[in-house]
């Protein structure tokens, strides 16, 4: 469904369906003229946001959905991923040294990747509950520093 400059989709809370969101975001980004490397960055960020929503937000409850909204603007693409769960609380940034030494679980890289691959990221609560991740990728040649 496209309304003006928005594309919206809903995916089941089933691992694997994040790929639908990834490929949709990639198609939109390609149409906008993003470079291949930035499209790959976007795909990974969208995948991670959807996986977090499926696993941690919605707890893989198949009665829930993950909503993805892509908003096309002249110089940027915003992707919003929303789940139906409760807040996930503060997430500490992962340190590989701690994980290699067994001091931390090896998982926990999703938010790290999103923050490092996108130009802007915001974490919010939805108006009717749920977690919302807003990611913005700028239509520029240079990736984020």
């Amino acid at each position: 469904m496209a309304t003006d400059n928005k594309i919206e989709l809903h995916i089941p809370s089933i691992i694997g369906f994040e790929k639908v969101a990834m490929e949709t975001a990639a198609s939109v980004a390609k149409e906008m003229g993003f470079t291949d490397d930035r499209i790959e960055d976007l795909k990974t960020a969208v995948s991670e946001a959807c996986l977090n929503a499926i696993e941690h937000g919605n707890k893989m409850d198949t009665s829930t959905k993950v909503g993805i909204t892509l908003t096309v603007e002249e110089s940027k693409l915003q992707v919003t991923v929303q789940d139906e769960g409760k807040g996930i609380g503060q997430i500490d940034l992962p340190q590989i040294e701690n994980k290699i030494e067994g001091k931390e679980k090896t998982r926990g890289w999703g938010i790290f990747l999103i923050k490092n691959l996108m130009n802007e990221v915001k974490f919010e609560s939805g108006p009717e509950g749920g977690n919302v991740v807003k990611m913005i990728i700028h239509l520029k040649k240079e990736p984020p520093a």
Partner: protein
Amino acid sequence: MNKNIEISISDKGGVSIITIKGDVTAITGSAIEAAYEKVSSAGVKKILLYFDKEGYINSGGIAVLIGIASESRKKEQVIRITGLSDHFQKIFYMVGLTKYTELFPSEDLALKDF
């Protein structure tokens, strides 16, 4: 919905090559772990992980690879990696996996002087 993963193990000059075709996720990663355990139990000290350029690796898959890197240090093994797309080479560098495993642009270069 998850693409199946295909794992094969071969040997070249004392190096165990674990070839990975498909998506690397928390779910499919168990197959990589099983292959790693198999070569480790045979006492192999040099391992090459050969990825599929078209494959997708998510954070769950990265966690599996970090677990393997962690185990390899305890077992005094050396792990080299090849076959990654430019994007995933960047991801591996970003998370710090390249501090513990070296990336190579080809199998030949990965096996050279190993």
